[in-house]
């Protein structure tokens, strides 16, 4: 039984490591901050969670601890990427675009106008 779990853990860890590698590659290849963040948040969540839970499967006595670490990654990863994206937008980094699609710009202008009116 433990043998099977250990092999399953190895497979899960390997998948995680592959996704982590692809995430790193994405950060290098993508054209701007936001798309890089996409690679950094998407491909690496499955990577990190896979690697950590895989280790937990190889050592069943750690399984709950590693699950909690994975849970915290799932909770904190999107919040940090939101903060980074919002921060980079507010200091004026433009979105790399083929065709201009930017609903956020208009919304920010509207909020600013309302603040000035008050």
């Amino acid at each position, binding site marked *: 039984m433990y043998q099977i779990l250990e092999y399953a853990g190895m497979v899960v860890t390997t998948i995680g490591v592959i*996704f982590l590698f*692809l*995430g790193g*590659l*994405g950060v290098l*290849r*993508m*054209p*701007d901050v*936001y*798309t890089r*963040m*996409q*690679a950094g*948040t*998407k*491909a690496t*969540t*499955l*990577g990190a969670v896979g690697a950590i839970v895989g280790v937990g499967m190889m050592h069943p*006595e*750690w*399984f*709950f*601890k590693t*699950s*909690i670490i994975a849970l915290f990654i*799932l*909770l904190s*990863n*999107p*919040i940090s*990427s*939101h903060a980074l*994206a*919002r921060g980079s*937008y507010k200091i004026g980094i433009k*979105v*790399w*675009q*083929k*065709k*201009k*699609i*930017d*609903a*956020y*710009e208009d*919304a920010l202008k509207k*909020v600013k106008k309302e603040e000035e009116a008050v």
Partner: protein
Amino acid sequence: MSRILFSFIVFFLFWVALTSSLDPQELGVGALVSLIIAFLAGKEITEDGMKNFSFRRIQYTIRYLFVFFWEMIKANLDVAMRIIQPVIPINPGIVEVPTKLKSNVAKLALANSITLTPGTLTVDIIDDKLYIHWIDVKSENPEENFKEISSVFEKYIKEIFE
């Protein structure tokens, strides 16, 4: 009171998972520590208290976890496939998505779920509109975006948090 009880139970479960042991001494210390923290911080941590443990909410939470993990795996594969292609097929932009959720916790859960799924990243929430950086924009109509991006999660989150 129900808020303190709820946070006590959550803290205690975390303690048991972290220590991974059922030794009475461990459990005793865990109960004591979780009780103290629950009294100090319980009111700040949750708004609904024991209502969070109602059968309906637990049932939807479990179903939501399955939906969420499936979407997350799809998201990871999608982005990974884009990365390894010689010319990266992207058409990024920031789109607006309306939401009907009212409570802050529910909006947070929705924004986090969206960030973890295919090619979408929540940049900001203003009132009841989410602004989402989408790696491959398919339409600019907020209603269609709602269907495409967030309707999968929204019905579950509505049941869980409201």
